[in-house]
């Protein structure tokens, strides 16, 4: 027995010594390594892939223009398979194996909340392109985001429903197992009530699991709301919208940036016709940043970029800008430069990082017409 234990201990000790001797790539002088962790496979693969494409496009543009501080940007990507327990290894690998100067990631707030503390401890700046949960950057010295937060989005949609659409009775249909969905619903309900509106029904479903929503939708219908807010991901919204129409809910549907996906717009074309959703940017906007980005993206990937690509692109550009202003790859200097980001002309609007490390920037409301999202209005924070 004791012999077995000694044997095990010996093995663990040897292997850790062996690992200690294993060399890692030293930082090459002519390159700046940017790490990215994302969901390249698994349940939220489309988000991860879109983000990666945006980051790659930005990096290749920066390198074509001579790089940053005369050095090439190299993006190292680690896949976390949409699983929270893979994030720690992915982020540690970026920091300690690839020697990333800055880490970019994740889309899902839950996974950013695993990566954040690791970067915080290691003293490596982390920029999330699209995690909108307020807790991601709360009390963090090293974590930033280039998107707005759930509270702003929920609030903006409540204002849009109350002021622009003139709705007075609203129903909310939340994915109870998704942080994102609950956050949005919370701030939407609060603002809608504060404005004087009435939230007549709040129902919930299991995001990514449930397929039959008719019981909840029938309850919602019986309360006769003016609008129905569905802050879920596109993977569920198609089925929900179809069944909502089947049970006879004909009022406009509202949603958040989780709706942003080509599949939803084309497959559920008829049932979500006329619905509104908030997002980070519209490819219809006529700013030069947007048209340049859309043209370059179409040329490289032969499809229209979605919001995740735009945010990934902006995250990379904001990071490059901060390194340029920091004048070195010193991580403390980059952190300070990120904090000082002011009115950076991004694809998703003018980005200013506030004292809580969140981006102050506009939000776009789009309406679906004939299977295509069309720009309705831009809301300033």
């Amino acid at each position, binding site marked *: 027995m004791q012999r077995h234990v000694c044997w*095990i*201990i010996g093995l663990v*000790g040897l292997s*850790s010594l062996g690992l200690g001797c294993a060399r890692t790539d030293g930082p090459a002088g002519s390159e700046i390594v940017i790490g990215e962790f994302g969901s390249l496979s698994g349940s939220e693969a489309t988000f991860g892939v879109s983000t990666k494409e945006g980051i790659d496009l930005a990096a290749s543009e920066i390198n074509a223009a001579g790089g940053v501080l005369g050095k090439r940007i190299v993006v190292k990507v680690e896949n976390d398979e949409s699983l929270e327990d893979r994030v720690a*290894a992915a982020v540690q*690998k970026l*920091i300690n*194996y690839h020697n990333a100067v800055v880490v970019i990631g994740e889309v899902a707030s839950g996974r950013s909340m695993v990566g954040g503390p690791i970067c915080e401890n290691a003293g490596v700046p982390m920029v999330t392109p699209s995690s909108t949960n307020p807790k991601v950057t709360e009390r963090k010295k090293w974590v930033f985001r280039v998107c707005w937060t759930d509270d702003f989005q929920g609030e903006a949609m409540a204002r849009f429903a109350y002021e622009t659409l003139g709705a007075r009775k609203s129903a909310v249909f939340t994915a109870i197992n998704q*942080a994102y969905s*609950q956050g949005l619903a919370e701030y939407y309900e609060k603002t809608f009530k504060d404005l004087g509106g009435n939230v007549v029904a709040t129902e919930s479903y299991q995001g990514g699991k449930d397929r039959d929503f008719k019981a909840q939708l029938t309850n919602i219908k019986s309360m006769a709301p003016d609008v129905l807010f569905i802050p879920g991901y596109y993977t569920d919204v198609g089925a929900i919208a179809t069944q909502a129409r089947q049970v006879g809910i004909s009022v406009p549907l509202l949603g958040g940036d989780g709706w942003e996906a080509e599949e939803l717009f084309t497959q559920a074309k008829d049932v979500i016709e006329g619905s509104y959703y908030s997002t980070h940017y519209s490819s219809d906007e006529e700013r030069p940043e947007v048209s340049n980005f859309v043209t370059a993206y179409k040329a490289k990937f032969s499809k229209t970029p979605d919001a995740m690509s735009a945010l990934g692109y902006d995250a990379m550009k904001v990071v490059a800008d901060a390194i340029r202003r920091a004048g070195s790859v010193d991580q403390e200097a980059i952190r300070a430069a990120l904090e000082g980001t002011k009115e950076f002309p991004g694809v998703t609007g003018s980005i200013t990082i506030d004292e809580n490390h969140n981006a102050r920037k506009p939000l776009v409301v789009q309406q679906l017409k004939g299977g295509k999202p069309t720009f309705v209005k831009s809301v300033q924070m």
Partner: protein
Amino acid sequence: MKSLLLPTLIAAGGIYLIERFCLPSVNPYYVTVMYAAGFNIIMAVSLNVINGFTGHFSLGHAGFMAVGAYASAGITCKHIEALRGALIFCPEPVANSLILLSVLLVGGVCAAMAGLIVGLPTLRLKGDYLAIATLGFGEIIRIIINNIGSLGGGRGLPNIPPLTNFFWTFLCVVVTILTLRNYTRSSHGKALLAIREDELAAEMVGINTTRYKVVAFVMGAFFAGIAGGLFAHYNNFISPNGFDFIQSVIFVVMVVLGGMGSITGSVLAAVFLTALPQFLSPLTRLMETWHLAGDPKNVIYPLLLIVMMLTRPKGLLADKELSWAGVQSVFLRLRRGHAAS
């Protein structure tokens, strides 16, 4: 008990020395992978007692892990200051260890209770039915946690104090392995094997099958709860989605690959399957150059399982253990082979 104490003490000393002298020179990335392997070893070995030794297919192991994780992290998130205050007379590392140990125990006991509640009615089921019942249990746990607002609900529980360290993780690994090894070698373990081979015959020779099955199930759940507590205090963030059906399947794959009824097999499979994804990123990049999107793991896992099912249907080390004596006998046989030729 006596046979557990001495090896555990030796192991504690060894792990402490490793943590103190080897670990600081190891790249933190490898250490992270070692932690992940440690959690997975506890999960795989404890599941093996249920799936491998007793032969009852459970698909809800991640559910027990979730119970342990949420029970322990729920306490530390809410009351860490009070606990630290109560232990103010201890130096900080000692206080942290005491807190970690006590919440791990709470997590383990909660998971064991869940195991008892689930096990009593469902272990009367056999084969596929038990698999479905335990699968249902895992989903129920996930949905219940989704609806508990004070534990963060679907938004997850952030800012869990980082109490887990290398020493306690690997000491728990060693204790799990030793306990379950002793258990499965005892007359209890023989009873479990008898149940697996032929439940009716086992009953005929006087084995109280329900009792043994429930005890095995509860033990498996207890250690899964411990692993959950360690994971929660390592990851600093947990959410119900992290403990879904897919996770349970990953643990089952570890057991099946390593071999039903082989503890060393489960350990090897857990380490192998934890490390495997780490080596795949070059392959992913290679696939990208051929314009193939996706995760090579999704090809490798099924291939691995198919090949194994065809060649070794009970797993790599079915009912066998790797041991010193085994290795020695292989060498001896080789040498004898040489001498003969």
